[in-house]
């Protein structure tokens, strides 16, 4: 079972203060930490579990800057066999379509039975790349997958719908699944494995190697802005005693004690 996993290195913004830079098209990154996109860590883990069960070769690919090589090395340490970095710096502004089309050019000749991606990246939140990639490769896909089985050489994917409902599908291989968080327990790479991964093969490709010249974005980011403040909460300040006294009286006034 040969598997490809697409991963992305993203700024960790869930609990950070996010500020817009002077271009208004990007954020100020120097105080942010970067790591593998959360859903991609689950996609990678699912691929490693598949490799452990069915054998085969696991390739990780990332369209990113030179720092993405650190993220790819972590994937190699966890169990990937090969890594490919596509030089994002050579392709200018990227939307979901352009990202997928470039990745397709880079992997179309790499043998694959299954491709895993995260269901969404937390930075641009397109939730498109995996689905477009499948369409461009001419293979079936399933998104938001929270459970996978193989039965009689067919892939059984369970998609997470709203309200906790699951959609159970049967798909023929080769196929692409976009993985939802929570599907497994992503492993950590040991220090020894990280040291060993430094010797594994990491290929870097760019415009010279892949025909990405004519790939155009479908959308252009005009500007970023801070969302308008909605119905703002009444903020409680003061000492902890004052805050808890106020909260206590709110609960009491509602007749909830």
């Amino acid at each position, binding site marked *: 079972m040969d598997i490809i996993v697409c991963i992305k290195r993203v700024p960790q*913004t*869930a*609990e950070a*203060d*996010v500020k817009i830079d002077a271009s208004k098209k990007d*954020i100020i990154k120097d105080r942010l930490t970067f790591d593998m996109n959360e859903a991609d860590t689950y996609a990678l883990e699912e691929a490693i579990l598949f490799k452990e069960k069915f054998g085969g070769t696991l390739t990780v690919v990332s369209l990113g800057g030179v720092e993405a090589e650190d993220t790819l090395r972590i994937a190699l340490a966890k169990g990937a066999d090969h890594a490919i970095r596509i030089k994002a710096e050579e392709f200018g502004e990227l939307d979901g*379509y352009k990202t997928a089309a470039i990745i397709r050019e880079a992997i179309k000749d790499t043998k694959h039975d299954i491709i895993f991606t995260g269901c969404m990246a*937390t*930075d641009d939140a*397109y*939730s*498109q790349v995996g*689905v*477009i990639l499948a*369409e*461009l490769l001419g293979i079936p*896909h399933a*998104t*938001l997958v929270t459970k996978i089985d193989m039965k009689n050489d067919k892939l*059984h994917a369970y*998609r*997470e*719908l*709203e*309200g*906790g*409902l699951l*959609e*159970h*599908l*049967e*798909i*023929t291989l080769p*196929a692409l699944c976009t993985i939802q*968080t*929570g599907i497994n327990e992503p492993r950590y790479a040991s220090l020894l494995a990280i040291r060993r991964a430094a010797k594994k093969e990491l290929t870097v490709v760019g415009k010279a190697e892949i025909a990405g010249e004519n790939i*155009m*974005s479908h*959308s*252009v*980011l*005009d*500007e*970023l*802005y801070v*969302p308008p403040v*909605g119905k703002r*909460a*009444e*903020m*409680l300040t003061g000492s*902890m*005693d004052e*805050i*808890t*006294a106020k909260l*206590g009286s709110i*609960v009491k006034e*509602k007749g*909830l004690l």
Partner: protein
Amino acid sequence: MGEIFALVEHRQNAVRDITFELLTCGRRIAEQQNAQLTALLFGHNIAQTCDAVKNHAHRILAIDHELYKTFNAETYQATLVDIIQKEKPLLTLIGHTAFGWDLAPSLATQLGIPFTTDCLALEIRDDLAHATRQMYDGKLNAHVTLKKHDSYIVTLRSGSVPAEDASLNAEVQNYEPPLSAEPEYRKFLEYIEAAVGEVDITKADIIVSIGRGIKEQANMPAIEDFVKAIGGVLACSRPVVDAGWLPKDRQVGSSGKTVKPKLYIALGISGAFQHIVGMKGADTIIAVNKDPNAPIFNEADYGVVEDLFKVVPALKEKIVELKG
């Protein structure tokens, strides 16, 4: 001038809220563009479904066939490709739901139509589609313009355009399904309902809900003590379930439960929209978060910018004292 299309989303004929939001968004754009609004309705035994959307569009393009009894992105895609190529709409609106997520990007790619996903607002100006999206964990908004074309596809986020009533009394046109069977390579097998858990959080008056800010499982007992003291039930946002610290039936949000308690206390929850849609119906919302810019403070009635591990034990003491 091309028409505005909106794809009706229903689950075995139960029309979902997003449908009326799409039709409201589509109706506004149609009025402004002097265009007609068409609802695309695929299903089986759809008479009632048709009635439900009838007043919301000028026309319903209906396919009543067994093939569409349940949603399959592949059959929907093949059908929509056929319709869009023949009818050449200016805009096709699809929900950014688990269905739209599976369908829209591959549909647009096959058709070669510019598109974008998860939009909060959409405008067509000078034949260009301008969308508003969110990025960076919902911390920032973005204005996005689609590449100029004669047709666009956009997915709309649930709850971003409140549904409004209309009285358009649509003309219903039947459309022949362009395919006769599900493709061999992707077959729908079944829907699986969520398992029933030991506690039904949708019935609770007081919910204490924890998020990413809980940091580690070792911090759970302090929260559980507080839940007990206040007489509520414990719920959470997605990261806590992903980590395996609480079961899925405790998750509040779009892929979990929708709750409407008298009191909702959100601890260390940043307030991603997927969570907000599940709890915004609570009577009173108190949020505790270290980040003063956390989106949860736009939903909450009362906010405290503090370390939740300082607030929780102190508030527990206060509640115990007030209860006597």
